[in-house]
């Protein structure tokens, strides 16, 4: 097991180098010269030269790449080009809002989708099952934007059940007042794809021999479904949830933007709008690292929960 983990960590190095190269290529080559961007419309050559010297852009590409690698290794991406705030402190201050929103959402959506999936798998092939699947397909074809626009308009603006937008310093006020509507809308959006996926995981199990054995020895159907089937169907569900955990770092771009939540997602969109490259570079590299690590954790958990899986 430990040999496997070490090898996987070792294999991450080329991938990480690839991510760094890709980000470097995008921002230093495709992105053009940021000095013109920073200097603004009315600038002279001296200003541009001084900005280039400050950012190290007058150095050869290999030196610039080395600077970037050092930035990644030391977690020091410098300061935002627009606000001057250090990139590290931007993330430290934006992450709590994203987590306040995303952590409850992830827990609730997983539980709800799993219960629905088992319910649908229980009545598989019936008109309820097929009807729900058709409704879910239709729901998934409606843009996320529509759910958020309508939800915000009807539930907050018209009915006044929730505040239209806002955020405070106090965690309890956020979770009790500002977060519920975004969480509810996130749930509505994710319920259809998650239930479909989890249902397929459950259906993979219901025809297995051990399920037939459980029924043959006279167990009740709830016990078969919720103890025997659920325990095995949970394995891919856990892997799925774990590999989605880095998404917590990104927050929910659209929800944060619509509801004025000062999270990481909104910060990234702002950074893209302002061409604030250091922020985007940092988040891309670190989320990629987080994704790799969580994928590994997912695989290891898979191994621990399912003895049939052999990791080599």
């Amino acid at each position, binding site marked *: 097991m430990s040999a496997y983990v070490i090898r996987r960590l070792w294999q991450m190095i080329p991938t990480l180098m690839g991510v760094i190269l890709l980000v470097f290529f995008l921002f230093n080559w495709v992105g053009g010269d940021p000095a013109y961007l920073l200097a603004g419309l009315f600038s002279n050559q001296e200003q541009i030269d001084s900005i280039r010297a400050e950012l190290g852009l007058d150095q050869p590409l290999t030196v610039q790449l080395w600077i970037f690698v050092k930035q990644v290794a030391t977690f020091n991406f410098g300061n935002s080009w627009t606000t001057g705030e250090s990139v590290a402190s931007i993330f430290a201050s934006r992450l709590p809002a994203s987590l306040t929103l995303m952590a409850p959402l992830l827990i609730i959506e997983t539980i709800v989708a799993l219960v629905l999936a088992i319910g649908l798998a229980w009545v598989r092939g019936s008109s309820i099952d097929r009807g729900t699947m058709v409704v879910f397909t239709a729901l998934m074809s409606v*843009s996320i934007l529509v759910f958020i626009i309508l939800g915000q308009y009807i539930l907050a603006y018209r009915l006044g059940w929730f505040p239209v937008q806002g955020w405070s310093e106090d965690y309890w006020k956020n979770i009790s007042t500002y977060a519920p509507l975004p969480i509810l809308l996130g749930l509505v959006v994710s319920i259809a794809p998650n239930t479909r996926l989890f249902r397929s995981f459950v259906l993979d199990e219901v025809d297995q021999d051990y399920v037939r054995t459980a029924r043959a020895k006279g167990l009740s159907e709830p016990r078969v479904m919720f103890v025997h089937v659920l325990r095995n169907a949970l394995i891919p569900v856990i892997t799925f949830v774990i590999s989605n955990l880095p998404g917590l770092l990104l927050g929910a771009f659209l929800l944060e933007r619509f509801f004025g939540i000062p999270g990481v997602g909104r910060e*990234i*969109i702002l950074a893209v709008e302002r061409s604030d490259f250091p922020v985007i570079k940092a988040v891309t590299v670190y989320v990629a690292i987080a994704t790799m690590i969580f994928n590994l954790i997912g695989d290891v958990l898979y191994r621990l929960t399912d003895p049939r899986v052999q990791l080599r």
Partner: protein
Amino acid sequence: MNSMHSSIATGTSEGAWSQAWRRFKSDAVGVWSGITVILCLILVLFTLLGSLAANWEKEVAIGHAPPSWTLTDSDRIDASSGSAGSLPNVVLYEPTPTDVVDPIAAQWELVQKAVKPAGDQVNALATHLPMGSDKWGRDVLAKTIKGAETSILVGLAAAFMATILGAALGAVSGWYGGVVDDLSNWLYNVFHSIPGILLILAIAAVLNTKGTMAVVIILGTTGWTGTYRLMRGEYLKHRHRDYVRAADAIGASNNRRMFVHILPNVSHVILVQFSLLTVSCIKAEVILSFLGFGVPVDGVSWGTMLTEAQNDLLVGKWWQLLSATAAMSIFVTGLSLLTDSLRDALDPKVIH
């Protein structure tokens, strides 16, 4: 089994594609969703040729004119009695600043006068339209159709680019193996370790140009990974099959074996991937345009319509939202159901 009997009787066996077609035809959901998708594509073709919704930018109604079908009978009577004389449902034309920026307004007026020289209703603005009008009095139905053209074409083009990239890289990787495979796998791992939406935003940030082409490039260069993995697997599987070895034995070149012998056998994977990617690219275009990184404001797509619809909704004008949402769900649902049916029909291993 029926096909086997008939093939013995006629001496020729039924091809894989005609078998798939036979399976597809028996699937009612698939056929109807296929018809829906084809109708939408015909609509797009007509807008491309300019015979439909070409004048979507023309101010044809008062601002925020409601859809006709929401009016009650008493509204209609009010509307007709309220307008001057013999022209029901119209008000007299008044120049607005919108016409100043409309580059074809002058010519359009001339054309209109040439067609209908007598009437004053040439420039009259309707008080209601089938799907209402937007803030600037443009016909929402025409906008929706024109927006469908943009969204569907962007979706198809981006999906095409992503599928070709993924399929080509996957085929080469699976076929040659070795260093080529290692390099491609490395590239796949790199792209795969960055969450899709983040990569899309990063490329949007560096491209820093807005427009339909930018959306196609962004979505095309980020969406290839799934197709790559599937195609690599297929080529690995087929590489050592007997028919490929037989082709090798009669001296078929690498390219010939890859593209003439194996490709037809894995083309159903490409088709299904293309269709799946089109759905996800259309959805992504809508979000990119909404965030302001996609179709620019002087164009129209379902995404820009939803952006406008958000502001319309605040003043109680819901029809643009309904129109864009309905159009998008019809096409996307149709295409999703069609993909499911295609997958079932093209995979002979699925029990029917």
